């Protein structure tokens, strides 16, 4: 009996100790890798390539953070999450950050107790239909069957859009993008709706992309960005400034081609010097090494390079920069100064 009591007490004590979590940064360093939540597979944003290595626009953010914190862009454990499981995975601590084309909204930020650290893609919700339906506007979709990923903001926007325009529809709730694609191609729904970038990525993976059109209406604002849990501001700052470093690097003309040269010695541009750690002590201020931003940028290149490589105009997805151009070129990408 004595043994049982002691063992029981030990178990209770052990569990209690496990529950009181330390700061995320220390956890990540102790573990030696970063747990990053991504989608279950969306070409261009986050999907494993032929060798099983995760690639994509959102994946690049994870890799940049891992490089900044651990010095190794490959030290990332990717966790596939669906629209429904992603927030629980983050809230429960299963993942350290979520980079899964997730829309920044008021209630997610405050009610769900998350912290969006920035925007890596400005998007909006669109509709894709087969060309043969002959539909040219979303307002002609009265009575249509619409495939939709459940647990997303697009689900709510869709309900609002059809209600406001006083037209009816039949929602077909679906868990993942892959299932939605299959249902849409099988003709089980007339329309597939999600973020316009997601539609472009999905269409690019079709056998005959030309047979499908994306309707002109963009019915919502969908600022997509990485997020972390509320309450650990140090960790939030690291993810935020890793993303800002990528954006700032493009603005200052720091690329993966010239970064070695620029970081070997102080340059004429003090912004670049502070960013790359050749001047000042910005790294120490967020608890990282002086060359953290250099490592983050070297992981996949700057923001523009990542964009071009994963979803840009020369890729099958073929998205133009649009709103996602640098602010100097008429877009919304704007990093606060590194000072």
């Amino acid at each position: 009996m004595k043994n049982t009591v002691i063992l029981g007490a030990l178990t209770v004590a052990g569990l209690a100790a496990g529950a009181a979590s330390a700061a995320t940064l220390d956890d990540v360093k102790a573990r030696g890798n970063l747990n990053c939540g991504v989608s279950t597979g969306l070409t261009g944003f986050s999907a494993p390539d032929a060798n099983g290595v995760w690639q994509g626009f959102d994946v690049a953010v994870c890799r940049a953070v891992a490089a900044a914190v651990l010095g190794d862009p490959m030290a990332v454990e990717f966790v596939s999450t669906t629209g429904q499981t992603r927030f629980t995975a983050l809230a429960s601590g299963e993942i350290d950050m979520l980079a899964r084309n997730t829309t920044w909204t008021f209630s997610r930020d405050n009610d769900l107790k998350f912290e969006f650290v920035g925007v890596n893609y400005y998007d909006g919700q669109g509709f894709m239909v087969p060309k043969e339906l002959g539909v040219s506007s979303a307002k002609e979709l009265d009575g249509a069957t619409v495939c939709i990923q459940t647990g997303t903001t697009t689900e709510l926007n869709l309900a609002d859009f059809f209600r406001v325009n006083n037209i009816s529809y039949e929602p077909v709730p679906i868990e993942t993008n892959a299932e939605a694609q299959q249902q849409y191609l099988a003709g089980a729904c007339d329309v597939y709706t999600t973020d316009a970038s997601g539609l472009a990525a999905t269409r690019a993976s079709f056998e005959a992309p030309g047979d499908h059109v994306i309707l002109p209406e963009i019915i919502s604002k969908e600022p997509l960005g990485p997020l972390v849990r509320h309450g650990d501001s140090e960790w939030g700052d690291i993810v935020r400034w890793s993303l800002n470093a990528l954006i700032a690097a493009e603005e200052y003309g720091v690329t993966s081609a010239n970064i070695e040269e620029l970081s070997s010695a102080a340059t004429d541009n003090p912004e670049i010097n502070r960013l790359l750690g050749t001047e000042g002590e910005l790294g120490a201020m967020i608890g990282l090494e002086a060359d953290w931003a250099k490592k983050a940028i070297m992981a996949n290149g700057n923001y523009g390079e990542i964009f071009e490589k994963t979803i840009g105009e020369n890729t099958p997805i073929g998205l133009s920069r649009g709103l996602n151009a640098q602010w100097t070129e008429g877009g919304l990408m704007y990093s606060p100064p590194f000072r």
Partner: protein
Amino acid sequence: MTTMTDPPGQGFRLSQLIYDTRYRSLTIQVVAMIVLMLLFSWLVSNTIHNLQTLGKDFDFGFLTQPSGYDINQRLIEYDSQSTHGRAAVVGILNTLLVAVLGCALATVLGVIAGVLRLSNNWLVSRLMAVYVEGFRNVPLLLWIVLIFALMTESTPAPRAFRGDTPDASMLFDAVAITNRGVYIPAIHFASPFFTNGLFNWLLILAVLGASIFAISRLRHWATEKQEATGDRPTTWYLILGLLIVPTGLLMLLMGAFLDMPSLQGFNFGGGVHLRNSLIALWLALSLYTGAFIAEIVRGGILAVNKGQTEAAYALGIRPSTTMNLVILPQALRVIIPPLISQFLNLTKNSSLAIAVGYMDVRSTLGGITINQTGRELEGMLLLGLFYLVLSLLISGVMNVYNASVKLKER
């Protein structure tokens, strides 16, 4: 004889709690209780602590907030402006619908397969063995997904029905089988005096119930007459008349007509739309649970002494009558208790609905609502409570039935 004397009285020693058999069990129970309480209180305090760390509170107020999402299959009025609570009720009704349909079909399939597996016909019994082993030994989720995929991939899209020479056509111009589900004719009522659909159906059900009661009285009368005179009066035309005429008259009075599904815009309109998600889930749950029920039925029948069959045959009773009147009533006593747990399993397994996008309570309250409001703990507790109450209800009702068929001891 020597007189037994009590050993000299000793004071109570602490070690007696463990070594004295009089106290040992009590000690063990008390310690186990304390450990259990400690574990439970740790769970609660850990939850409270973690909720505090996350800055969350414990509040069911979200149930009265507008939900903002649409649900395709709804048995009651619901739109995106309705509350999360109502969305949960819509989900609950959908769960109940598939559970009731599933339990009914699974029982029918299970009883047939269980009886046939004992058949003397080699082919029939082996076919049933293949069915039982095939469905019992492959995970349910795979069957759900497989049936759903078959239905969406192998049936034509609604647009295949369009045009002068369509690729697909409707069965008897009444039933359309598409990859979005099956559209069947619906019964509507045109009479201006009977506009409330639910009320109409309840009225029809009441009349039908009265008819069935009258039929049972009629048969009772026929049996009495047979026992008194030896002649059984011919009653089949009376029974048929009682069954059809009152209900038929009532429906005529209500102006019932068939609303045929027809192509309207993108989809079929009119009629009743049985979605693929419902059909796939229903069939998969029934086939899967039916395989288990078949084994239970087979076990129940084998549990009845062979002497019973032989005695019945010796009396000249035909095999089918023997099965219905001698074997099955006795087998039921063995079958009912494990059958209850199969019904419970089916009901709880219906929460796999999300795999095919069927909007049951797990998908509405436990899925979208939790996701949109971030109330995981509250939502999961409510969900658990619902399944608990439902299971206890089913179990209670089945236990009442079990009490009515079990061996009466007087």
